[in-house]
């Protein structure tokens, strides 16, 4: 895989699209359908495979419908749009073509959570994970490093099924080895051997934030939802306390998913969930993701205090 001129670090999206280009060059019948969005990593594909880059214009409903027809014809379709619109505008198409008919469309979208918060609430796909979790048969993937992104193209081609992948434009670099990543489990544990009574469960950008801050606990990265519940429960039995963190609204998101699983398996872990609540209304001024995280109390020092608190209460027992 080549690097792209002018891009110092490879973002998860570009890692993925350059791999797609390599596969197309090697003869895979791949079509990229786009709703008027490109990427530096897509330029070569567009030049080399003109009629395999299908641009429908800013028409997300048609993006999904055309992708459905292409997938029906046996093409390996990657639909690509700007989040949140492919999900929020075209949810009915996703619901029918991907969930119900199970056409093997890979829906990819640039932007995850608050990564484009500067553009305003309209461009924040903060509900997308919650929305997509309501559907059966669709995997929801948040690549948190280059390795996951690299593995996606083979995963898509070897196991054709409906997928939704959202790329956070600030995630770059490598955290995992290939052997760490198992798409059938859907999660990976970043172990910190010192403390075992508390675990943070998160996905996407907050995996990177927690690891960068060196938090004194294990970090579980749920990079592909739904996770394998039984294996996850096996992990969660090791911890007394669970903290979930997500760059998305709390309703129906990762925190809800963990509560559902813990309840289903009759466990009694203490669970604290961090996520966006928008309880003071939707952003009305120019903003960015750090401001929004602060307003929602999603902060590294708050997580540090919580970990310290759980550690002390464990020591006192």
């Amino acid at each position, binding site marked *: 895989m080549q690097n792209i001129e002018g891009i110092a670090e490879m973002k998860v999206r570009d890692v993925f699209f350059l791999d797609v280009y390599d596969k197309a060059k090697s003869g895979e019948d791949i*079509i990229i*359908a786009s709703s008027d969005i490109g990427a530096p990593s897509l330029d070569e594909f567009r030049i080399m495979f003109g*009629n*395999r880059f*299908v641009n*429908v*214009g800013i*028409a997300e*409903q*048609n993006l*999904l*419908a*055309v*992708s*459905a*027809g*292409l*997938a*029906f*014809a*046996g*093409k390996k379709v990657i639909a690509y749009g700007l989040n949140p619109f492919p999900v929020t505008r075209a949810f*009915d*198409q996703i*619901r*029918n*073509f991907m969930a*119900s*008919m199970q056409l093997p469309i890979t829906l990819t979208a640039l932007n995850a959570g608050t990564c484009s918060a500067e553009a305003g609430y309209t461009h924040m796909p903060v509900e997308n994970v919650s929305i997509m979790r309501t559907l059966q048969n669709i995997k929801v993937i948040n690549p948190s490093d280059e390795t996951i992104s690299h593995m996606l193209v083979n995963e898509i081609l070897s196991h054709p099924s409906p997928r939704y992948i959202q790329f956070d434009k600030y995630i770059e670099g490598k955290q995992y080895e290939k052997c760490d990543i198992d798409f059938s489990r859907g999660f990976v544990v970043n172990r910190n051997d010192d403390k075992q009574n508390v675990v943070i469960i998160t996905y996407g950008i907050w995996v990177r934030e927690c690891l960068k801050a060196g938090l004194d606990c294990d970090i579980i990265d749920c990079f592909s939802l739904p996770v394998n519940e039984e294996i996850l429960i096996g992990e969660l039995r090791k911890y007394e306390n669970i903290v979930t963190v997500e760059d998305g609204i709390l309703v129906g998101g990762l925190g809800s998913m963990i509560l559902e699983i813990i309840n289903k398996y009759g466990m009694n872990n203490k669970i604290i969930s961090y996520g966006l609540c928008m309880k003071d209304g939707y952003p009305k001024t120019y903003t960015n993701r750090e401001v929004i995280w602060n307003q929602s109390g999603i902060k590294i020092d708050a997580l540090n205090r919580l970990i310290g608190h759980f550690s002390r209460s464990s020591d006192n027992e």
Partner: protein
Amino acid sequence: MNKIRIEELNRKAHDLRIRFLDIFTALGYGHLTTAYSETEILVALYYEVMQYDAKDWKEDNHDFLFMSKGHGAGMIYPILEDVGLITNEELHDMLRLGGNAFISRKFFLPGFEFYGGSLGMGLGMAAGLAYALKMNRDNKMVFCVLGDAECYEGSIWEAVLFAAHNQLNNLIVIVDRNYMGCSDFTENMCRLEPFDDKWKAFGWETKKVDGHSIGALVDAMGQIRARITSSPLCIVAETVKGKGLDSVSNIPLMHGYMPSGKDIDEAYENVKLL
């Protein structure tokens, strides 16, 4: 088409309307008026225009039909049974509570390429398939039956733009133009006219025909495999919702009507041969 064949197909349309009553009054659920509105359109497609081999069908050896107006899918069942694509037993197994919908859910019979009903979705998918067929230099045709009131959906016009831009001349739309939605006439709700001009303005070839004249419908689609234009084709088929059963035809709020009780016998007696 010769007169004898037209008469034969008119009788076929009548028989299918009767068979529709058998199937869906027994089920106690269905959309009679929309099925009767499109009967001649489907007869023209299945008995004259579409290419498929009922005796030796495979997933990909036939023309494709997207019933985007999914509420009208009911009329597909008696046709598939009549042409021999499904058996009587399969039909009854598919249309019973807890039955085996395996065949329709596999999406490989012409007319069941798609799970319609959420309006506005079939045309985009049909266009995507037409695009892929052209890429593959595959000369099968893609047909899409739309309801006129379905054309209020913005997604239809997204697909109309796409198909014209990509010169999908292997895509044929037939609009069941019965001038009625669910609650009212289209021109009372939110005017659609001049309807065919809208398609023309988007770059489509258009034809306007009597949608209950099988001869006119077949003529309009007579040369579709040898068209010299690069434009997709839209046939506006002027119809009457509920055609063939006067007591319910052209009356708003009859969209979800299926006769029950004593109305069933009355319906059988009154279904007309056009």
